Structures are given as structure tokens and as C-alpha cells.
């Protein structure tokens, strides 16, 4: 099955990004396809390489970058939501790109299922 993913919450405060990550990993392990992960609302904060958690904690941003690299997943950050929150090209972590909301709608049309992570 082809999945489109929407992440609506930022890292650490909320479990949405963790759950989305684990969902993607599990889906890929079962042979499913992740068409795109779209980051919206505070979810755009998952994309900044300035994130530096304590060493004994998971690095949520790096984990997404690694997943993108290993499986060629398209990580897209909403431009309007990102600019509101100071997320720009120059702070993007590896594997993320900034684009418009249309990318999410397209993903919803192309995918068999859209799964939303957030409140």
C-alpha cells in the first residue's frame, strides 16, 4: 500500500513525530511504500538541523534524515507554516525540502491512504 503521511506537531513536546517515524519504519519493513511525509503546523520544527537534544535522548530530526536517506523518502516542509516559524532553507536538515501545501494535496491524491499524526 502507498501511504501519504502528515505530521502536525513539533518534536519532543508532542509524540506525533515519534509515532509518525515508527509508523513509517514499520510500514516500510512490511514492504509498503511511503509516498511522502509532509510537515505542517508546528510539525515544520522537525526539519531544523539546529536541533541538539541531550546525548541520552533520541535525535528526532536526524532520525528522519536517516530514514529519508535509507529509503529515498520525500520529506516536505510547508513553506507558509515554515516561514511563520523561522524555518528556512539555511537551517534545513539533510533530506528535507521546503515546498507548498499543494505537495500534500497531491500526495493525498496519489496515495492509497493518508495517515495524520497530531492532535
Amino acid at each position, binding site marked *: 500500500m502507498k501511504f501519504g503521511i502528515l505530521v502536525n506537531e513539533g518534536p519532543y513536546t508532542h509524540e506525533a513525530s515519534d509515532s509518525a517515524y515508527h509508523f513509517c519504519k514499520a510500514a516500510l519493513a512490511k514492504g509498503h511504500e511511503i509516498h511522502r511525509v509532509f510537515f505542517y*503546523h508546528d510539525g515544520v520544527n522537525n526539519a531544523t538541523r539546529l536541533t541538539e537534544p541531550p546525548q541520552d535522548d533520541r535525535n528526532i530530526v536526524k532520525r528522519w534524515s536517516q530514514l529519508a536517506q535509507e529509503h529515498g523518502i520525500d520529506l516536505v516542509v510547508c513553506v507558509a507554516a515554515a516561514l511563520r516559524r523561522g524555518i528556512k532553507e539555511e537551517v534545513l536538515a539533510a533530506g528535507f525540502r521546503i515546498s507548498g501545501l*499543494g505537495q500534500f494535496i497531491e500526495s493525498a*491524491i496519489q496515495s492509497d491512504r493518508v495517515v*495524520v499524526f497530531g492532535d
Partner: protein
Amino acid sequence: MSESGQVKRFMYVNRKAPHGTVYALESLEVVLIAAAFDQDVTLVFMDDGVYQLKKGQQTKALEVKNFQPAYRALEDYDITKLYVEKESLESRGLGVEDMCVPVELIGRRELGRMMEEQDVLLSF
């Protein structure tokens, strides 16, 4: 229209008050952008989301943008299927006459059935 010409049934479920969090505003932004894709769109307002349509909002004292006029523009984007969950509206002491745009009231059970018919269900 999408490249494939495919039309899916999109339902946007608005559950949060218009101010206090950014969800209502950013949900509206998705709806307006998505309109360009010529999909079959339904908007639902339930829980505190019914307050998004409460007439006569004034946000000056909050120093935030009053985006309520944008709901009145939805018609220009051919988005005309607006449903308000009856139970949510009534439990907040509101009625259809309090809504800033024409809406249809829908009961919780019926809304559940309608949700089952959708291809893409987005809750904000």
C-alpha cells in the same frame, strides 16, 4: 485538476476554536490551496470548531488576524458543502442563526456515516 484527473472525496474536520491555537487558520489555508486541485470537498465543524463560524468576531484586542471573512469566500472556490455537527452546536448554546455562512446541520451518527464515505479525512 490533478495530473491524473483523479477526483477524491476530501473531508476537512475542524475541531478547534478559531483563536488560542493556529489550527483553524492553517486548516483554512489547506482548504483554500486544495481548492485549486478540483477535488470533492466537504467541510465539517464540530466540538469547539463550531466557534470558527460564530458570527461577529472581533480580534482587534487580541492583535491577531480576523480570518472569518475567508469563510464567506469559500463559495467563490466552489466549496459549498459545509456541515456543522448538531450536538456540538447545541451543547454550546448556539444555533444555525449564529453561523456566519450557510451551513447544514448534521447529527453525530449521520456524520459518522458520511466520514466512512470519504477517501481522505483530515482533522485539524
